[in-house]
């Protein structure tokens, strides 16, 4: 058992996979540049984590997710350090469902995105309620205020806000990664450990 986990980690984190993990981290932090330039109101800040979960596997995705939050902190946003648990959950969950073949079908991706969103909301709610009292100065804060003014506790309000917003963001993330990996070129397919769980046009 332990041996097989070790093998799995070695496979997902081979020297050849390192640049892809690094790129995923950079994508997590840079995708905002594209959505910003196009004025699309989504975060998609776990796009890279999901991509590496699908192409490499859960371990690689956890590494990519955690390190991109550390890197974000190093680059001037220390609050990202508090949100490691949801990132880990995204990596593990996506890695598992990708291996089960969920990224072969758009309908399963929508389902996966919804579950992922609920999971992420559940994990980040206690953090943002406890540390930020629900205030992040983000666009979704008005929802928290709305719930709180209707008599819900801070935790409940943050949770409801997350349950409303996160699934949408994660469904889009999943669908984007689904479209990205649906038709990988044949010559890439053999070079990613996770690609055998995708439907590809590969020759």
């Amino acid at each position, binding site marked *: 058992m332990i041996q097989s986990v070790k093998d799995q980690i070695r496979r997902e984190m081979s020297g050849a996979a390192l640049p892809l993990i690094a790129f995923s981290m950079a994508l997590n932090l840079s995708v905002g540049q594209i959505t910003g330039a196009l004025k699309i109101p989504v975060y998609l800040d776990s796009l890279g984590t999901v991509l590496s979960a699908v192409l490499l596997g859960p371990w690689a995705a956890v590494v990519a997710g955690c390190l991109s939050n550390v890197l974000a902190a190093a680059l001037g946003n220390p609050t990202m350090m508090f949100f490691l648990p949801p990132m880990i959950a995204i990596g593990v969950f996506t890695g598992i469902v990708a291996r089960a073949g969920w990224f072969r079908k758009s309908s399963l991706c929508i389902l996966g995105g919804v579950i992922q969103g609920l999971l992420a909301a559940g994990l980040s709610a206690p953090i943002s309620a406890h540390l930020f009292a629900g205030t992040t100065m983000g666009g979704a804060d008005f929802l928290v205020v709305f719930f709180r003014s209707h008599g819900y506790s801070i935790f409940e309000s943050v949770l409801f806000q997350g349950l409303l917003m996160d699934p949408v963001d994660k469904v889009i993330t999943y669908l984007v990664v689904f479209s990205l990996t*649906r*038709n*990988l*070129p*044949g*010559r*890439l397919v053999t070079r990613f450990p996770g690609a055998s769980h995708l439907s590809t*046009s590969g*020759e």
Partner: protein
Amino acid sequence: MSISAKGVDFSYQTGSPVLQDFTMDLRRGECILMVGRNGAGKSTFLKLLNGILKPTKGEIYINGRNTATTPTSELAGHVAVTFQNPGDQIFSPTVRKEILFGPRNLRRENAEELTDRALTLLGLVSKASRHPYDLLPAERKLLTIASAVAMDTPLLAFDEPTGGLSQYEREIISNGLRQLKTDGRSFFIVTHDLDFFLPLATQVLVLSSGRVAYSAPAAELVRNAHLLRKYGVTLPLTTRLLRLLEIDSKS
């Protein structure tokens, strides 16, 4: 179709001009080559052509439209520009779909037909249903040229279209361009491959630190090879070798 650039200045940052007082005219059916050292401002000019960048001074008119005030999506219907790196644009699962992207965006009614013509012209018919990244790098370069051709614009502008290509692909491009030329299309080509494009060209511009250092009809150029060398453009090894042998046999 025409390009007319008058006194164009451009700089990314104030104080370090990339282009200065750049003036040129291109009329229908012409083919202008632009040569010069790396960093002379050649690629920048291509981005000014379709309004991605706007001149800091002066004006560029494409078919009478001022690039400073016309949106890029509209200018794209008049001038198709390709950049050096195919990786910047390729995203479709098949070669055919990739080429269709341009004409679809421009709402060309005969998009399918234009795509077929472009595929034939650049020898990609047998590769039409393959993934672009399953092609060789040289074939991807042909694909970007085909993508531009299929947009059915009167003017085509290329950045180093033959960079890294072997004799075989260069001949495909040369035949393709000849055919497009007889259809009345005009070209603006940024290149180091002078030897290859000279037979097609009507005029050559030499750009040196943002200014037009030399401009002459193509036929005149071979006689002024020493001028080219001064601006970092060299003739092919064998041409130079033959010339050297000539000098040797005379002395």
